[in-house]
């Protein structure tokens, strides 16, 4: 028998029982179960979604191309399932990457302005405003993109096509309605601007005063200080912010659905109508009229989106984690 010979403390246990610590311990046990349960629920949900996608996508992935062609509307003849999903994945990635290319520089500029240039009061107001952009429903973005932005952008796209038509992205016949990938990319960029700005701003604000002052004391102007101290420090943070934005752009449905005139090609012509389609918009568009194997096919495309989004988010996490190890000079 092992006895732990702690020094006898006859008074202490009595006192402890009376103190509030004990009731807290009772509650904290409950709270621990609630917290653990909530955590487990997240995992279970994720697993359930993955399982659902795989199980329901399986019939479509294993079906013959003839069967698929019969069941699925707009299924190209004599093609494998991969060849059917491929253009959709391509369109999804194209839309998201273009949106990212537009949004990241703007978001970095806004974040730098808020964190290092604007007077404090203006910075706060501007921060709220950018966050408000995130509160606008995507249907509203779709309406706005369709009715306001597309007509405004149409002349710009024509101009780009005229002068830079040699560049693959701007080649082809310009759509007069501008309901094209280019317009979609702009709308998506506006939609992912808040998340990228918010995360970048937080990272920039965390730049050690020590490094900023080191640059200033060397005779750096504000911009040079930003370049030598803030940007190198924030680099990986901005990358992970961009990845979060990319994740959001990948899954965006409504705005794409309302604006884009869809096509099913591997096409870089973002100014031409009926070229590309994204997975999310495709599912939303075709789901109401799908039945049987067509539903499975749609779910299979959903699985592809799920995998892409998961990969992007994991990459973002990995970069954030690497940032933690890189702790700087001190």
């Amino acid at each position, binding site marked *: 028998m092992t006895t732990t010979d702690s020094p006898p403390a006859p008074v202490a246990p009595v006192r402890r029982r009376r103190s509030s610590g004990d009731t807290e311990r009772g509650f904290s046990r409950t709270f621990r179960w609630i917290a653990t349960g909530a955590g487990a629920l997240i995992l279970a949900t994720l697993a359930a979604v993955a399982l659902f996608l795989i199980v329901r996508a399986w019939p479509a992935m294993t079906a013959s191309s003839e069967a698929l062609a019969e069941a699925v509307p707009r299924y190209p003849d004599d093609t494998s399932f991969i060849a059917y999903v491929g253009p959709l994945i391509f369109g999804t990635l194209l839309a998201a990457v273009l949106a990212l290319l537009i949004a990241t520089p703007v978001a970095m500029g806004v974040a730098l302005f808020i964190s290092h240039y604007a007077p*404090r009061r203006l910075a706060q107001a501007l921060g709220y405003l950018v966050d408000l952009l995130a509160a606008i429903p995507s249907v509203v973005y779709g309406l706005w993109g369709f009715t306001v932005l597309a007509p405004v952008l149409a002349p710009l796209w024509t101009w780009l096509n005229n002068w830079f038509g040699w560049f693959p992205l701007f080649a082809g016949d310009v759509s007069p309605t501008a309901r094209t990938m280019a317009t979609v990319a702009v709308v998506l960029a506006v939609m992912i601007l808040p998340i990228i700005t918010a995360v970048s701003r937080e990272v920039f604000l965390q730049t*050690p005063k*020590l*490094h900023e*002052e*080191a*640059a*200033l*004391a*060397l*005779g*750096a*102007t504000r911009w*040079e200080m930003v370049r*030598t*101290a803030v940007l*190198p*420090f924030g*680099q990986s943070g901005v990358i992970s912010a961009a990845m979060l934005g990319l994740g959001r752009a990948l899954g965006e449905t409504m705005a794409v659905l309302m604006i884009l005139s869809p096509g099913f090609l591997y096409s870089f012509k973002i100014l031409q109508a009926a070229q590309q389609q994204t997975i999310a918009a495709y599912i939303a568009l075709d789901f109401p009229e799908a039945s049987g194997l067509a539903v499975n096919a749609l779910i299979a495309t959903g699985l592809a989106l799920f995998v892409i989004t998961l990969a992007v988010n994991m990459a973002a996490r990995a970069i954030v984690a690497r940032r933690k190890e*890189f702790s*700087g*000079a*001190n």
Partner: protein
Amino acid sequence: MAQRIDVKDVNIYYGDFRAVEGVTMTVDPKSVTAFIGPSGCGKSTFLRTLNRMHEVIPGAYVEGKVELEGVDLYGDDVDPVAVRRNIGMVFQRPNPFPTMSIKDNVLAGVKLNNRKISRSDADYLVESSLRGANLWNEVKDRLDRPGSGLSGGQQQRLCIARAIAVKPQVVLMDEPCSALDPISTLAIEDLIQELKKDYTIVIVTHNMQQAARVSDRTAFFNIAGTGKPGKLIEMNDTATIFSSPAEKATEDYVSGRFG
């Protein structure tokens, strides 16, 4: 290469709070001037006004004149960026740029000042600055490694090399040894003796022995109490301050009776 500083009736504020009041002093060229005094007496704040780093803090401003060889640093047409290029600074904690190599750290200020520097000039400058900071022999084989990989004392000497690489007139040091071990401290103190041949040096220190060891002149700052502004109590040759100060407060402080 070294210039004198004349401070005339300077008041320093953080917003509404007057942190330092009525300082008038002269800092001689090619000498080491030490600022001593209890915590919160405004000696670091005052140091930061000498190269206009004080106003970097939101709401902070300065009244009065700080003249470098007769030119008022707070004149209307003076660019604070230009002032800081002329008056270098070394901080309390070593702050090399963590993403830059040792070499790039040394060249950081030079690249800000004139973009184009030939490779051979750059190499020469890196070596002479690192030699000037007594660091060359320790790092000459790993100039391309990150500066953050060095020890604290080496990092601080790297920061000194970075400060002197831009050939300033004056080098300000804000408690440069307070985060360092005794051996590194000794290395920095030796370096200060070397540097004063070429530069005007102003050093803030908590360590009275250090002030006595390295400085030619010493200024003693004090505050009457919390929330009151700091004042320059007395400034004189270091030997005089430590042996026969004119003020009672100075004597109490240097003899360790408070602070």
